């Protein structure tokens, strides 16, 4: 059984939509259960859609993109799985095994477009400085466009050219490309912190950085605990400054 053109288009749009949604509005948040339900409606087989969506949902419990990390795209995996369960006619199980590798590709796609986003961000800031505020906003809209294109690309290829081509591409991609991208995705969040340090008084107050580091790296206190400690230190810093000012003023008066 092959898919109608409108179904293919709809599924590609779903792939784009859930990925935009996951990064912003969070109506579906690309949750497999929800995506499965939608695909089921499009493909006219709600039961398979729910079954596949349910399976991927349970598989992805606890997987969350935090701190800017990239995770497999279980939403797209669900779409592919639903489609191929239908076309191959061999049911959900086969769909699941075809869907998963395509979903895994989501990590690399995510790293890629986040890298591209850097250029957009820089361009936007340049426009700001040139007081081209309209352009500043407009260029930023490229990001959602990119998300839509990048993240629906694997789906489009798989649905038009067939899963074997996707697999072939995956096989041809050398490990150092995919692996390298995911390593980059793990190293690059450090760039943000490094930039932060550049426009904070990092040298003057490096002792506080050190304390935060020791407490986190050696003692494994989570960031909320560090922040509570930091609050204590900041308050002491503040009151000491006040006291210094007062004493400087009152001077000898206070002395015994």
């Amino acid at each position, binding site marked *: 059984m092959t898919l109608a053109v409108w179904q293919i288009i709809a599924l590609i749009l779903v792939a784009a939509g859930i990925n935009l949604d996951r990064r912003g509005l969070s109506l579906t948040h690309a949750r497999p259960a929800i995506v499965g339900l939608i695909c089921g409606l499009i493909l006219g087989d*709600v039961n398979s859609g729910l079954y596949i969506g349910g399976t991927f949902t349970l598989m992805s419990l606890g997987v969350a993109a935090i701190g800017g990390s990239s995770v497999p795209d279980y939403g797209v995996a669900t779409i592919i799985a639903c489609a191929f369960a239908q076309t191959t006619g061999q049911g959900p199980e086969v769909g699941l095994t075809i869907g998963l590798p395509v979903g895994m590709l989501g990590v690399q796609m995510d790293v890629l477009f986040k890298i591209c986003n850097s250029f957009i961000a820089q361009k936007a800031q340049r426009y700001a400085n040139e007081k081209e505020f309209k352009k500043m906003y407009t260029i930023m809209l490229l990001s959602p466009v990119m998300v839509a294109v990048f993240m629906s690309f694997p789906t489009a290829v798989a649905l038009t050219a067939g899963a074997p081509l996707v697999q072939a591409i995956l096989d041809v991609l050398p490990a150092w490309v995919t692996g390298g991208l995911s390593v980059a995705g793990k190293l690059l969040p450090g760039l943000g912190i490094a930039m932060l340090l550049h426009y904070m008084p990092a040298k003057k107050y490096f002792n506080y950085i050190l304390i935060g580091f020791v407490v986190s790296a050696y003692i494994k206190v989570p960031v*909320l605990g560090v922040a509570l400690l930091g609050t204590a230190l900041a308050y002491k*810093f503040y009151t000491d400054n006040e006291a210094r000012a007062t004493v400087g003023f009152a001077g000898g008066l206070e002395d015994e």
Partner: protein
Amino acid sequence: MNREPVLTKKDCVKGACRWSLMAVTTFNYDTQLAPAVVFGIGPLLRKIYPDDDEYVEALNNHFRYFNTHPWVANLVLGATLALEDKEGISAADAVQNIKVSLMGPLAGIGDTLIWTLLPTILGSIAGYMALEGNPVGTILWLLTNVFFIAVRTQLMWVGYREGTKLITKFGGKIAQITDAASVLGLTVVGALAATVVTAKTPLTFQMGEVNMALADLLDKILPSMISVLTVWALYKLIGRKGMKVTTIILLVILFSMVCSAFGILA
């Protein structure tokens, strides 16, 4: 530098919507959520700063690194808007420090509750029901999301309101507070430097039955070594004359590919 506030509740709802639609979409590795911040609250800043130069300054301030849980971010942004609305551009440093101090802890809380706990509960309900062909759990999940979308439209305003209260209380001490906030911010940044880079080395020395993981060894010398060294190296790179962020990103990608190819990092 005390001004008459201009933002209304309507402005804040608009800001929350713009921000919520963009959020992680514009995520990039150097300034992370910053572009979305500008996109979200830019129009509000414009209202605060009719003067072009001040507006540009404010925008540049918000183009700086910012990352936290996107839902909770509304509160932070609301609070800093309150500050800017009251104190004008002179509060830029304080705005920066407040954002930096709050982003870490709030990300921790939000990521735990909203990105982990909530989907685990709703997901297991929806998942098990779906396996039995029952869409009720899934629809319940959708409805919960609708509910949270509604809540989120209000959060920036909540932040603005509470922020205003605080500012009135601590009014006039902006310089001292900025400094103290730096102390808090840097303490948090020190902790982030230890955790933000999650790459590990899979290298092991295998000699007969002796098997030593390099990762364990590095940990013994200095825990979080890879993370802190990465941050430090990037910090030094950024400091270099003529070194653009773009170049650094490309260098990191190259470096990652090499390390990945030789199995040095994973």
